[in-house]
């Protein structure tokens, strides 16, 4: 299995602004893959790709079914589909919404954790609701790394708060710090030192 490290970033309300800051700080040499799951209405897909691409030096695109996961790329969960991580590629489904959301952060994070274990870093940003908390906890349990946006720094604190209730994260950081942290670690896997990538 030749999967790269994967950063899964989840957000809902206030997510577009937050993502511009985080993705904007990733250097062109960033060597992990990034999967972005943002709750969004169907039909605004192309705008989002466009908006995020403007601030990001890595190529940004919607996930295609069975697309291989490549380092140095930013993948967006398409509106109306869940993204599933399977070994070294993405899969899609139109299964029922989870926490009223499709794409759901929980689906992306849990399947990423199950497929890639310690190679995964989960990041929960601003938003309403509680999608992502369970997925982030699973990432942590399977040896990956968990980052939560500092609730007082978030446009909507529900999502980060729910995540903090569910998991003891590796870091609680403000947006700018998340960006630098990711940039410095290139995805940040094995931050725990102990987790062996077996």
């Amino acid at each position, binding site marked *: 299995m030749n999967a790269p490290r994967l950063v899964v970033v989840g957000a809902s309300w206030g997510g577009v602004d937050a993502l511009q800051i985080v993705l904007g700080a990733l250097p062109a040499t960033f060597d992990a893959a990034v999967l972005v799951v943002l709750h969004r209405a169907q039909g605004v897909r192309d705008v989002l790709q466009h908006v995020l691409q403007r601030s990001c030096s890595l190529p940004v695109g919607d996930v295609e*079914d069975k697309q291989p996961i490549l380092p140095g790329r930013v993948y967006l969960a398409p509106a*109306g589909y*869940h993204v599933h991580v399977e070994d070294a590629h993405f899969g899609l*489904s139109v*299964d*029922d919404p989870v926490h009223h959301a499709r794409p759901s952060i929980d689906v992306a994070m849990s399947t990423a954790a199950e497929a890639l274990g310690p190679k995964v870093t989960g990041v929960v940003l601003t938003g309403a609701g509680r999608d992502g908390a369970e997925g982030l906890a699973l990432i942590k*349990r*399977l*040896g990956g790394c968990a980052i939560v946006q500092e609730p007082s720094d978030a446009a909507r604190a529900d999502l980060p708060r729910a995540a903090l209730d569910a998991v003891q994260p590796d870091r609680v950081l403000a947006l700018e710090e998340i960006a630098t942290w990711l940039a410095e670690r290139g995805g940040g896997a094995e931050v725990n030192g102990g987790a062996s990538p077996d």
Partner: protein
Amino acid sequence: MNPAAHELDVEGLELELLLEAMFRRYGADFRGYARSSLRRRIRNMVRDERLGSISALQEKILREPEAMVRLLDHLSVCVTSMFRDPSFFLAFRQKVVPHLFSAPFVRIWCAGAATGEEVYSLAILLSEEGLFERCRLYGTDINAHLIEKARRGVFDAALMGEYEANYRAAGGKGSLSDYFRVAYDGATPRHGLKRNILFAQHNLAIDGSFNEFNVILCRNVMIYFGAELQNRVHELFFQSLRRKGFLCLGRRESLPRALAKTRYETVDAEERIYRRRS
């Protein structure tokens, strides 16, 4: 290995054994499906049946055929709607329909039709384009219960508002309500609409080709399949498609690269409409 990873490994093995048991005992072949969505659905079933593990579910389905029936329903829980992705239906109207007029008789296969919304949407579109009389629409699905519902064609009246909006965005020329009779128990297609539609059970994973078609639609079905099974189904579609016939996939699905070049030309890249070369 950490305990959670160990548990996951064991569960992965249980899942493979369950799939094997389903196949050997009932001939239900899900071995070629993408694992992640399958695993989530099977976990739901384990929870709903108040069982402790996938192994326990395996024991249950082997001994109780009714449990197997419930499992099959869990595996094809399905969300669909009328004129899902209106822009696709608009493109179909503009870029596929004009080519169908030259054929004396038009056969359309909608594979993975679920409860039929997609097929009825097509029927409406084709009758507005004056083509329906010459068409025969085949809606197939692996799940007999869904096919039964599709045949009955009773739709939730509460959804008709949303469908009406989709229909308009898809270039609808009248009003969707012209095509349905709304009663207390739901909206049913008016008589004429069902005339040229045939629903049947068909399993893409094991069944063969059953006709030659001018158009094949298979949207949001193959995303559930692994790459190998996808290739098998693409082979089946190619065999079942007339020369210059059209193949329509879901919004985020594409043809395997090899086929995209040699066997098909792209009619609309955004809407995933392809045309068989020869």
